[in-house]
């Protein structure tokens, strides 16, 4: 177990290094120094500004050294130009005059809040409907649940988002325009402000869980041991929830791991549809602003969360299925 964890964490670190190296190369070297400077400097660029940009981005040094400065800066902090950037330093955005780490830390709660609520909602409803469909397979409930899942899963969020805003905010007036409030300030405002994007995310993600839960549970229900459980006289609830659902958990967790990775790296369309300033929006603005250090920071953060989510999934396998040995 410990061995597994150490090995996997080392693996995660190695992959992050590779990801960051590739990104770094693509951003700062592949297109040539000139284009980097031109991009970062903007339209009205004077030769002096060019020099400042070159100096600020550290382009004067060889590429590998630049990369080393970037990586060591994450752990030790560094000075960029006249700015001090403390641990964990992901760089400095000269375009916006912001410390990348601070910006990311600033935007992160929005993304996390979006993710938490969405996960809770789509897991509950998706798995619930999936179990219901599996229990009543072939019957009306099954058809309604799977049909609903198919419908909701095929609605794109840029249709759903504006539609919901139009319907619930503008027409019915049931709620305000989505807005982020800090959970610590007012939990109720936090929840009500994010309800609409949560519902949107739930609607599109849920379909997968309904279908996955249903199909794996139907598979498990045909296993020999389910017959044994029935022969023991267990009630339907015991058979379905305690045993059959347990058997269906592994694939659900796999998909959940991917989804959480995606949500934590920022839901670009959802955030922009509802004008929420999370990591996704940050990614979009940094691209449109040609803010290379910011983009670099967002990529590293997104990759880290995806990797971590996968690690957690692997650990969960062993918890769910005692036959899985972590090695």
């Amino acid at each position, binding site marked *: 177990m410990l061995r597994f964890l150490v090995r996997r964490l080392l693996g995660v670190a190695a992959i992050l290094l590779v990801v960051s190296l590739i990104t770094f190369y693509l951003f700062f070297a592949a297109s040539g120094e000139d284009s980097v400077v031109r991009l970062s400097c903007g339209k009205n660029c004077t030769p002096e500004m060019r020099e400042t940009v070159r100096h600020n981005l550290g382009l004067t040094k060889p590429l590998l050294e630049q990369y080393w400065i970037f990586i060591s800066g994450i752990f030790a902090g560094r000075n960029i130009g006249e700015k001090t950037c403390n641990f964990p330093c992901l760089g400095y955005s000269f375009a916006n005059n912001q410390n990348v780490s601070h910006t990311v830390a600033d935007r992160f709660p929005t993304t996390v809040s979006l993710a938490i609520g969405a996960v809770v909602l789509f897991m509950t409803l998706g798995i619930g409907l999936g179990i219901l469909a599996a229990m009543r397979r*072939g019957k009306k409930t099954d058809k309604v649940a799977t049909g609903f899942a198919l419908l909701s899963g095929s609605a794109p969020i840029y249709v759903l988002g504006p539609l919901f805003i139009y319907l619930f905010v503008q027409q019915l007036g049931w709620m305000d325009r989505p807005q982020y409030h800090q959970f610590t300030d007012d939990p109720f405002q936090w929840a009500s402000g994010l309800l609409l994007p949560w519902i949107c995310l739930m609607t599109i993600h849920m379909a997968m869980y309904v279908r996955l839960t249903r199909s794996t549970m139907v598979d498990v229900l045909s*296993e*020999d*041991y389910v*017959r*044994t*459980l*029935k*022969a*023991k*006289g*267990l*009630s339907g609830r*015991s058979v379905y929830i305690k*045993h059959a659902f*347990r*058997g269906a958990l592994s694939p659900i967790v796999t998909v959940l791991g991917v989804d959480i990775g995606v949500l934590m790296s920022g839901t670009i369309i959802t955030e922009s549809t509802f004008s929420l300033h999370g990591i996704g929006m940050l990614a979009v603005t940094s691209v449109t602003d040609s803010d290379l250090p910011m983009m670099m920071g967002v990529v590293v953060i997104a990759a880290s969360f995806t990797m971590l989510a996968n690690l957690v999934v692997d650990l969960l396998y062993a918890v*769910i*299925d*005692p*036959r899985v040995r972590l090695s």
Partner: protein
Amino acid sequence: MAASTDTTADQPTGKAETAKKAGAPARSDGSDAFLSVRDLRVHFSTDDGVVKAVDGLSFDVEKGRTLGIVGESGSGKSVSSLTILGLHNREKTKIEGEIRFDGRELITMPERKLRDLRGRRISMIFQDPLTALSPFYTVGEQIAESYRRHLGANRSDAHARAIEMLDRVGIPNPKTRVNDYPHHFSGGMRQRAMIAMSLVCDPDLLIADEPTTALDVTVQAQILDLLRDLQDEFGTAILFITHDLGVIAQMAHDVLVMYAGRSVEKGTVREVLKNPRHPYTWGLLSSMPNLSGDVDVPLRPVRGTPPSLLAPPPGCPFHPRCDYADVVGGERCRTEPPLLALSEGRGTACHLSAEDKQRIFIDDVRPLLG
């Protein structure tokens, strides 16, 4: 426990049947039966038509005795056992007949009431103990679950009971093993755990569906010994389903031979195996190689292949494969043979006259059996 001497004690041939397997009460022709199946028909509808998996089956299981149902694949033996507990797929199955257990009709019993019987008064063990146990819960939890469900015991009592049962079925270090998962166990140990689970509520009837088929012979012998010991101790009636006449010889007091969804012969184990009267039973016995006797006598298989249950042959389902259909006169075999008389313990569903059966068995069949 496992070292206990064979309970099929050294009884000389011909001694009263009841004495053979210790503790078995004498049979009393139905009155004592607490599982009685009458004219059971189980028909499945499939895309190709109706499969007559069981087609007019009757038998009794008496307290403390073992009824062995023997037949080849597709004979309907497993289907009948699942039907007793209502574990068949209800939507595509049509069931007719009676299944009476302790005075109550099971076929029409609502699922909720059946559930109270399952695992409590009638329990079941299956062929492959690896797939029949959940991989996600410990062996102890799976045993305790049954006990809690039916007897309302609390967790710690049920846990203690699980340990007690594991010990009873001969699993060493039950206090440690109770927390193991099925995949930690070998095949034989898993089947012991399965037996512990089935007996945890002290049921009246145990249905064992090919419980040793997936096991090696040495392990099979241990499991059979264990089941006999437990039957002596708890007086559980056993419905033992197998394809192996050898296992039947060791386990059963009474035997029912099934072919194509029908019962073709029944009687006590000695009657059926020492003095078989149905051509199919003869075929089964002469097909089997044995450990003694002349090795140069070729086996005499049953010719042909089992019939399709979608369109079974008319009359006696065995007649297309029967070597003695000519003795009867082929046409008569195409009519229904006499059903097994329900009131008697002994019977065959065959058109051959009693004299012919006797003569053919002595002249033709017995010399082949070592």
